[in-house]
């Protein structure tokens, strides 16, 4: 389940917008999982959702209109019904992919973009840590 196909890229986006879309998607997904009755430790998902919100906020500070240009990624799983372990793997894969796939050498990135993206990546890593207990 937890492979890259779970990330549905609707259109071509620049690196910062892509990172924002992932952060928002995982924020929503983790919040849904955290609210499920069958989750043992809902706090780790709540904290992860919060960290992803911080990541998205960080990018939105650099680009206030980013939410006009992008939509959160859609996942190929239904977080309300997918088994918790599978849902966890999807969320972790999305976070790991978001951090790993960001092209820091993209010449279109301004220094402020890079700094904001780096901070957002740190928040995503902390979300990963909140869910899994370790860094990506």
């Amino acid at each position: 389940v937890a492979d890259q196909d779970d990330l549905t890229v609707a259109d071509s986006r620049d690196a910062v917008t892509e990172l924002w879309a992932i952060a928002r998607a995982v924020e929503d997904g983790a919040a849904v999982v955290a609210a499920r009755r069958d989750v043992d430790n809902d706090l780790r998902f709540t904290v992860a959702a919060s960290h992803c919100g911080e990541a998205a906020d960080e990018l939105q500070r650099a680009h206030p209109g980013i939410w006009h240009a992008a939509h959160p990624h859609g996942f190929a799983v239904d977080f309300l019904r997918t088994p918790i372990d599978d849902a966890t793997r999807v969320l972790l894969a999305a976070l790991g992919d978001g951090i790993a796939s960001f092209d820091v050498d993209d010449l279109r990135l301004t220094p402020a973009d890079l700094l904001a993206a780096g901070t957002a990546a740190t928040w995503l890593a902390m979300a990963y840590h909140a869910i899994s207990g370790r860094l990506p």
Partner: protein
Amino acid sequence: VSVADATYRELIDAAFSAAGRASFALMRHRFVDGQQAREAVAAYRDLLDAVRVHAHYLNPLVRREGPASDTSASDPVASSDTPLFARSIAMLAERGRRSFPAMNRESLPEVALLWRRAATSLRASQDLLDTHRSPDFGWRSPDAWLVDHAKPQAAATESLAGFLRAIAGSGQALALRAREVDRTIDCTDILDSAALRLAAASLTHYAHKTAGVPALDELRAIREAQSLRIDGQPLSSAVNAMNELRQQAWEHARSGHVSIRTIGVYAALATSVYQHAAVIAVAGAARAAQLHLGTDPAATSAQLQRSSQQSIAAAHSWGQVRRMCARLKTTAVPHPEIYELLLAVRADLATVTRDRSDWRQASLMLPDADVAHRVFTAVHELVASLEEISAWHQNAVARLAEAGQLYIAASDVDREQISDDHTLAAALLTRKPIPLPQRQTAELLEAFAHADGASWSAARTETRSDSVSRLRRPAFSRMREMYREAGRPNVGL
């Protein structure tokens, strides 16, 4: 951009980029051993120290009073009287530590290298600002006042606070990463990033007390500013020479031995530059439609016509000042290098505007839109420098007049004045210079005031012609405009 050529903003941006890359490097690579982890922690603490020192440097109050001597760093809300800035500094001081890499650069983990690079850029940006100051915090350049001004400081502090907020979270991630390989590494203080976030918030809050103007962003090191070489562009020699003249004029106007003869050379310079600027503006007005200058070529043409008229008025005013200065006597030694720089400016302008003894046709002067933009940008720089020089010299002449240091040959005084004053008659007989009489002094000061006003009008018109030229220092222009409007054009002197 090399460190030597960089502006303050470019160095800060280099720190931003390096810190952003470091965050990704930290998340993508694990440490192979405890030594690498320790190097990364040391590099992070070194970066925090660079932020602290830079924030401290940007704030003159804290610099004078010492770094938060009365502050409880562990309890930032303990004292409501403690300045926000000092609290931030104290929290940074607890976590930051100056250090140097213990390993070869090749062996350092990427994240440590990048944090070291960010710290180096921050320190270099401070060194850049420091080149404008003398060791006792005096001023060494006409831009030094910006370093001590609250508005540029506030803008730079806000930027630094944003940087600190961004790197605050990296400490937490670093501590977790380091403990993957060695749980004994001393990093518990950075594991909780809340304190650093609070420090960043305090810095931001402090910076917001003043409406910032990012004029420091445009500064280069003084050595580079003096001899900034802009080559391969139209009028590059003129701009280079004018940069040197600007520095020399500022030093001259501040010195205790102001020479009216030197001021007269600058008046000749202004006359010449404004004449050429007027011709170039007229050519631009004629070519605006063909070259599609600006978003509305008709409006651009009208604006360039106005600019030309302002330049003609300024040239006339400075011509009058130059003639009045030429009649005055001085024992001051002339500065041939200033005259040579004047000739360099004039010669370079002539390469654009003149064909031997004739003015060049507009189509040859401004053959295409690209050349036109470059020429107008260069002219804008020349006129902007003249506006400052004008203000400084008006102030210098007022000082000379007040001190009774203006002299004239008795033969140049009206016969009526000589008849009324026997000392003037005696001076005429002995052919000695006499103090400039009150009426002529008033006329001279009035001529300077008129010429300075014309310079400001010409510079302001040029500033608003941004559709045909690019402002090299827009924030600085805002600062000048602010002080002109406040009636303090000689700020920074």
